[in-house]
């Protein structure tokens, strides 16, 4: 990379770093909220996969759309969401992005183009493809990214919508976050053949990329987003990554399906934040002090948002039958 390019991109790099750290901070707090029994229900941690969401979302505009998954906090932060509204949502508070009605598995932030997390594995593949259909039909140059896991590649819906996206050249990028597991099962036990090969069979260009390398992810995402805007979509990305926590926050004893060594190896040798931080310092883009300061600020912001959310109020009982239908104030009145 030329020094000139490096300088002009410094701001972008720092934003990427910042967003990765924000995701990690968000998840650490969410996990604590669960462990201290302050959060209703369960949630799925994105820690370890930050370079995927950030590398991709930093290649997108606010008007571009994403669809997310049950493991959706990372996508939500990366696409521009605020801590306060996110924690409020996780705690079921009125100021949450969905007024507390959706919770972690349905968090959405339409102001930043996040069409929502989804508790049906693979459930958003049609939605993402439809969002791309809208862009094409209305002549907008928006791109849509569909995030999903390796496990979701087993859902037939994926092949149905890839076929249509390919036939109609829709501006959609299917982003498969291959973290090696679906729940408690290794990917090779549930996926025959080749994941990228499946997209290619539909005539879709497919790429495998190191999901722990935010620059590699971002580079590819930028190219593909631009090509989508020019009508060359759809595309498929398989991002090799890893989740540090259990399948959900309650999945503590994991040794029956994966070893502690494996977890340690990913955390110590392939952590996306540590790697990128090292690179930033090495390249002279930021000093250790600057980075530490940024980390500290984010930590404080997260803690403040948690505090706010814990104090915030629940929606009023009268909300229970609101928003069943739009244009109808109370469905049961």
């Amino acid at each position, binding site marked *: 990379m030329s020094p000139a390019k490096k300088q002009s991109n410094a701001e972008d790099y720092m934003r990427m770093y910042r967003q990765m750290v924000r995701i990690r901070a968000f998840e650490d707090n969410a996990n604590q909220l669960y462990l201290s029994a302050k959060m209703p229900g369960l949630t799925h941690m994105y820690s370890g996969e930050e370079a995927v969401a950030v590398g991709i979302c930093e290649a997108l505009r606010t008007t571009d759309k994403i669809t997310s998954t049950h493991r959706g906090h990372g996508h939500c932060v990366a696409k521009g969401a605020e801590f306060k509204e996110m924690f409020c949502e996780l705690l079921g508070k009125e100021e949450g992005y969905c007024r*507390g009605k959706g919770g972690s598995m349905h968090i959405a932030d339409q102001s930043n183009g996040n069409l929502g997390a989804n508790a049906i594995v693979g*459930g958003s593949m*049609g*939605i993402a493809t*439809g969002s791309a*259909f809208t862009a094409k039909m209305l002549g907008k140059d928006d791109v849509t990214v569909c995030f999903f896991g390796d496990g979701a590649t087993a859902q037939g819906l994926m092949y*149905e919508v890839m076929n249509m996206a390919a036939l109609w050249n829709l501006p959609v990028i299917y982003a498969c976050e291959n973290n090696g597991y679906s729940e408690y099962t290794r990917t090779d036990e549930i996926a025959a053949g080749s994941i990228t090969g499946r997209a290619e069979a539909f005539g879709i260009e497919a790429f495998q990329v190191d999901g722990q390398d935010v620059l590699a992810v971002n580079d590819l995402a930028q190219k593909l987003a631009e090509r989508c805007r020019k009508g060359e979509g759809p595309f498929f990305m398989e991002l090799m990554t890893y989740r540090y926590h259990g399948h959900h926050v309650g999945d503590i004893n994991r040794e029956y399906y994966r070893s502690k060594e494996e977890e340690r190896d990913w955390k110590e040798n392939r952590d996306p934040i540590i790697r990128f931080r090292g690179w930033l310092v090495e390249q002279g883009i930021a000093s250790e002090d600057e980075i530490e300061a940024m980390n500290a600020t984010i930590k404080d912001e997260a803690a403040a948002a948690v505090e706010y959310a814990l104090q915030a109020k629940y929606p009023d009982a009268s909300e229970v039958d609101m928003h069943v239908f*739009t244009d109808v104030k109370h469905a049961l009145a």
Partner: protein
Amino acid sequence: MREITLSQAVNEALAEEMRRDETVFIIGEDVAEAGTPFKVLSGLVEEFGTGRVVDTPIAEPGFMGLAVGAAMTGTRPVVDLMFGDFIYLVMDQLCNQAAKTHYMSGGKLNVPLVLRTNLGATRRSAAQHSQSLHALVAHIPGLKVALPSSAYEAKGLMKTAIRDNNPVVIFEDKLMYNDKAPVPEEEFLIPFGEANIKREGSDITLIGTSSMVQVCEAAADILEKEGISAEVIDPRTIVPLDEEALLKSAKKTSRVIVVDEGHQSYGITGEIAGRINEKAFYHLDAPVLRMGAMDVPVPFTPALEDLTVPTPETVAENARRLMSGEMIHAA
């Protein structure tokens, strides 16, 4: 007034709304050049092009899901599901996604889509092409459900459905596509949740949906000759349901039969009867009777298929039972 077929009525409704709002599009199998196997959409692709009358691969879950995403981002899809029996294939996208998105997002995301499909047996199409599955979707909060009973309703309800900002499912009776009815040339809409009193009467109320409205009218003709005055009501939409109109009639006549072409058990007649029983109980001279399709898969052979659905004769027969007080002894 001019008369047109139900098929033409649907076609007109779609064409008018597509002219009025360029975000409306149709998506489904063989909707374009073929105009669907029932030819309901003939001519639309010529006017609106393949960009807005979109032929899909045979992938019902896929195009249903696509429509949900399209609707969430600024268009108004009309999804064409060739047979109502295929609704099982789209249930996840319809009920887990379309129906819940507005609520789950706290009111921030809308899914203004229409799923048009059909119902009705006695076409000799056997068990997988003859079902009337509107009860399944009526049970799911977040979906509106319309059941047009003639060309007039088919047009007016379709136009309302397309303008509605919520997901709406419309079931047309596939045996009625060629039935004609008077339909005004001028634009009109039929609001959801307003039942239509097809025929006034004083002795008994016959509530019919979709093609069962005709069946109830024919039963009323039979009964009239016998001196029994039957009121025939068509709810037109079952979600929202015009409970008030149904209760008013029930209180007036004191006797009610609910007739529907879905399977009787755990279908819509139970709900309608249940509400009337509950809210007009002390006005009723007899229990509300329910008549749905027989609780059997639809048989292919005409010798059996015709036995499975309510007919004017069986409705009239039940009306006589209710009038005679025979029920009292049966109970």
